[in-house]
């Protein structure tokens, strides 16, 4: 996803994408981030325990932890709540 996003939207996107283990490069590509920013976001999420580095044989990747579920749920409910009300004019 590209375009102007808030930091919370980027966190959410990384967490959703990393539900299955993902490499650093694929996260950069999918979330449209540069490597410096991606590193910072991943470090933050890892520090908070929302993402962990998993290794499968020779491959290693980032994967969301069960703790991330709470953030994802809260984020989804807040964003879907925006469409609780009609726009206020007839479509």
């Amino acid at each position: 996803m590209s375009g102007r996003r808030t930091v919370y939207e980027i966190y959410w996107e990384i967490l959703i994408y990393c539900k299955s283990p993902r490499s650093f490069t694929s996260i950069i590509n999918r979330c449209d981030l540069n490597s410096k920013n991606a590193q910072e976001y991943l470090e933050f999420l890892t520090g908070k325990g929302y993402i962990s580095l998993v290794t499968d044989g020779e491959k290693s990747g980032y994967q969301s932890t069960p703790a991330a579920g709470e953030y994802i749920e809260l984020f989804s409910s807040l964003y879907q709540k925006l469409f609780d009300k009609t726009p206020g004019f007839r479509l």
Partner: protein
Amino acid sequence: MMTNALSLFKTEIRHFFLISLLNLVFAAIAIAIGVQYMVTAILAQAPDPFIPGFLVIPGLRVFTGAVALICFGLGISWILTTVRIFEGIVTIKDDLDNDGDTIADERLTCLIVRMLAHYRDNRRTIRTMILVCTLGGICFFVLGIANSLKVLTLSSGGFAFTLDNLLLIPAMLLTLSISLASLLSSYYFSRFADVWERRLREIGDSECALKQKLGLEEA
């Protein structure tokens, strides 16, 4: 909650798509008519010898040509701004249509985030489009009236004008429909912009909860 959010989101995207499409069509017509009026204005520069007694306003056709040129410019500006917005909306609408009614919760949130990002990216463009649509509507209205004027005389006692009936009806119908379309577009775009601005504010307000969840701020 999700079904309601999904149906509202779908309706909004569909309407926004339709308005953008309508804009594209009318912007193309506006360019074509702008060119046509410019050519007509240049060819009809000379005073009409068949109407004696009336002083032909020397600058009338020049004025019409100038307004037509403005309309042509506004038409181009109108189409360029609409295309930028239209492209983003088409991709979101296509994804929404492809997912059907059984859209996952995460997918819907993803599309909402995309739409918000698209709005943030094109905030200024949408504001410009509202202005261009309004100006376009007014210019086309003026153009329709000016082009249907055959002769206009001004004196200290008042003014007199002669209208060309053959030109008046089609010209007025065309310009009226374009004016109406552009003013309607302007209205709907401004309403949509207001709604999305309100949503951006709501997101700003709810960021506190997300901050707390991430442990960035004390409760």
